[in-house]
């Protein structure tokens, strides 16, 4: 993924949409008022209905309180100190070359085998080399268009496909769902929009990585994916290379809708900057992700590998409305150094014979704190619903923590709910055993960690899985011994 040479050629492409470059000069001063919301909307040339939607969200946000139930600790966020129109940094404010970038970051890029030009892009270096605009991008667009798949930026979708956006936006994650979702609804910057038409199997895996507009819109990203009747799509988010971002607070919203017999597979590798060893400067990742299995026999599957961010607050969930619908959640979450992760899922069973599977693997190292928080709710209507939850924690060292907060609510006596949990520690004896066989300390740790995560890795698309393994081993370097 990250090492694809094709990407190199993409990064040099000029933006088609003129406004993207126009805003280069403008940036909003910090602060959040109704005017901020109007400004953001106007900048994007949005129609009135979109602005009204944002304003309504803003009104609701103002009446809400920041939640404090998560098992994470961070200094209070001053929402008036954030700039809500994060125009891309002008070239002169950026690092001028890789020499100006944190050498540790470069070291990691090299270990991951990321080409030089791509390193520059990821590190936010002012890139002015223009490559011949090649074809990958176009072929890719052509292929999707031929299948009738819509894959574009959220702003473009608002302009080009207002009917779809109006119909589905906020239908899975309501504006007032939670504090961060409300904030996102008011000021979201951009994001991705996907529509897969009826009885269509999306001809390729869709990745945000190929949509260059998505760069630098990370702060308040909005994603909406609709799989119409009988369709299938696999969507990849993120990339294994650690991404630098000037914005500390990230509050994204992702909504998935699967209609009758449709399937959405959503895979994430999240590797935002976790901060230094003391946790300084890391990203706060407060994300709301939810999938709606609206149709009969529909299926939504979340797979995530979370290794970055200083704080992760994220619960990709499934609402299983359609009869026989299936929800899945496979997760590896790593908290090293001072990282804190509170992550898990919600499986809301509403339809008859709905099934869900949760496999969560938490790794804590250094002074990291890792919490699994999961809700399984079986509604009265969910006759014959089944859930299986497996929740394992692996500890490395004696200064980290693993916590499990499972919530189970069952209102239908025909349901079957299983919960398995385990906590283990990589012991010095295990390491010595492997080392005495000729395996280096580092390889021994990797062997154990990969064995622990295997169940989740096998759910990832092949190339993502290989990179995720590599990423974990780099993130854990020096964590033991």
């Amino acid at each position: 993924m990250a090492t694809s040479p094709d990407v190199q050629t993409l990064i040099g492409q000029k933006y088609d949409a003129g406004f993207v470059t126009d805003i280069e000069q403008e940036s909003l001063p910090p602060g959040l008022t109704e005017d901020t919301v109007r400004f953001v909307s106007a900048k994007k040339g949005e129609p009135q209905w979109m602005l009204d939607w944002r304003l309504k969200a803003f009104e609701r946000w103002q009446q809400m309180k920041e939640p404090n139930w998560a098992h994470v600790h961070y200094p209070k966020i001053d929402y008036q100190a954030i700039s809500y129109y994060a125009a891309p940094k002008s070239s002169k404010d950026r690092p001028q070359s890789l020499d100006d970038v944190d050498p540790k970051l470069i070291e990691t890029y090299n270990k991951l085998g990321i080409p030089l030009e791509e390193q520059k892009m990821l590190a936010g270096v002012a890139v002015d080399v223009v490559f011949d605009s090649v074809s990958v991008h176009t072929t890719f667009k052509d292929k999707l268009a031929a299948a009738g798949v819509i894959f574009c930026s959220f702003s473009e979708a608002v302009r080009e496909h207002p009917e779809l956006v109006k119909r589905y936006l906020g239908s899975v994650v309501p504006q007032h769902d939670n504090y961060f979702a409300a904030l996102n609804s008011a000021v979201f910057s951009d994001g991705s929009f996907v529509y897969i038409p009826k009885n269509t199997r999306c001809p390729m895996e869709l990745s945000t990585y190929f949509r260059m507009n998505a760069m630098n819109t990370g702060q308040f990203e909005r994603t909406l994916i609709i799989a119409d009747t009988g369709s299938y799509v696999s969507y990849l988010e993120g990339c294994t290379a650690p991404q630098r971002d000037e914005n500390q607070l990230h509050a994204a919203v992702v909504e998935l809708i699967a209609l009758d017999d449709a399937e959405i597979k959503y895979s994430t590798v999240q590797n935002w900057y976790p901060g230094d060893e003391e946790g300084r400067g890391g990203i706060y990742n407060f994300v709301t992700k939810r999938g709606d299995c609206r149709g009969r026999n529909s299926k939504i599957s979340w797979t995530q590998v979370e290794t970055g961010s200083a704080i992760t607050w994220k619960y990709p969930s499934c609402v299983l409305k359609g009869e026989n619908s299936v929800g899945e959640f496979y997760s590896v979450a790593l908290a090293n150094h001072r990282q804190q992760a509170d992550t898990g899922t919600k499986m809301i069973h509403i339809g008859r014979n709905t099934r869900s599977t949760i496999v969560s693997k938490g790794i804590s190292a250094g002074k990291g704190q890792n919490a699994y928080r999961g809700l399984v709710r079986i509604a009265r209507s969910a006759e014959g619903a089944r859930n299986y939850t497996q929740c394992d924690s692996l500890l490395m060292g004696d200064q980290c923590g693993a916590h499990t907060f499972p919530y189970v609510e069952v209102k239908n006596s025909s349901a079957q709910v299983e919960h398995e949990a385990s906590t283990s520690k990589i012991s010095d004896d295990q390491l010595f055993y492997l080392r005495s066989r000729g395996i280096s300390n580092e390889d021994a740790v990797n062997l154990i960690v990969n064995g622990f995560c295997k169940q989740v890795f096998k759910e990832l698309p092949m190339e993502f899985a290989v990179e995720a393994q590599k990423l974990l081993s780099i993130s854990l370097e020096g964590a033991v011994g």
Partner: protein
Amino acid sequence: MLKIENLHVEVEGKPILRGINLEVPAGQVHAIMGPNGSGKSTLAHVIAGKPGYTVTQGSVSFNGTDLLGLEPEARAGEGVFLAFQYPLEIPGVNNVYMLKAALNGIRKYRGLPEMDAVQFLNLVKEKTKILGLKESLLNRPVNQGFSGGEKKRNEVFQMSVLEPKLAVLDETDSGLDIDALRIVAEGVNQLRSPERAFLVVTHYQRLLDYIVPDVVHVLAQGRIVKSGPRELALELEERGYDWLLPSAVA
């Protein structure tokens, strides 16, 4: 091959080994016997490089190389193998996969090219046949859910694949019934060769009926108090250890 001189070892300030002198030439099998707490396992661990032991005096050399200065994985690279008294369980890690990583780690240490999957699997098949090991054990997580006998047999299986120059067997017979004992011993005997040495730590002379040693050493209170031929083991069985213990304990 293995040469231990005046080895003193402490654990958390408490002396365990108090001046061990031992030489095991290539091609020989030496048995270490002795009462509980005499330091037998400590000796085995120190040779393999287990952390937690402090060597206060003396040396351990292996074919002229100072072993004490090497990490455990480098000692394996030099050709040292320890069969554990209590083999560890490693959940999620496939037994054969681990062994392949080990073999290639050792080959890398010796500057040899890595063995590919096909070559490796052929080697494994051959060895399982020789040891009468159930193939189903190969693809299970390392030692997880193995019976006591299966764990010990797995140790001998690993040893036969890694083909060490010096194998240290730490009470490999403990917890084995007589049939398992015979199978494990056969596995060891098949590996006996003029280039290979064995150090067999055991409580009971029973194992030595199957693995016949060249020399038997008695370890007591951190020292080797007597060495002798194979018959010494039989005498120990009859008379116990008391007659060998120094009357005054330091």
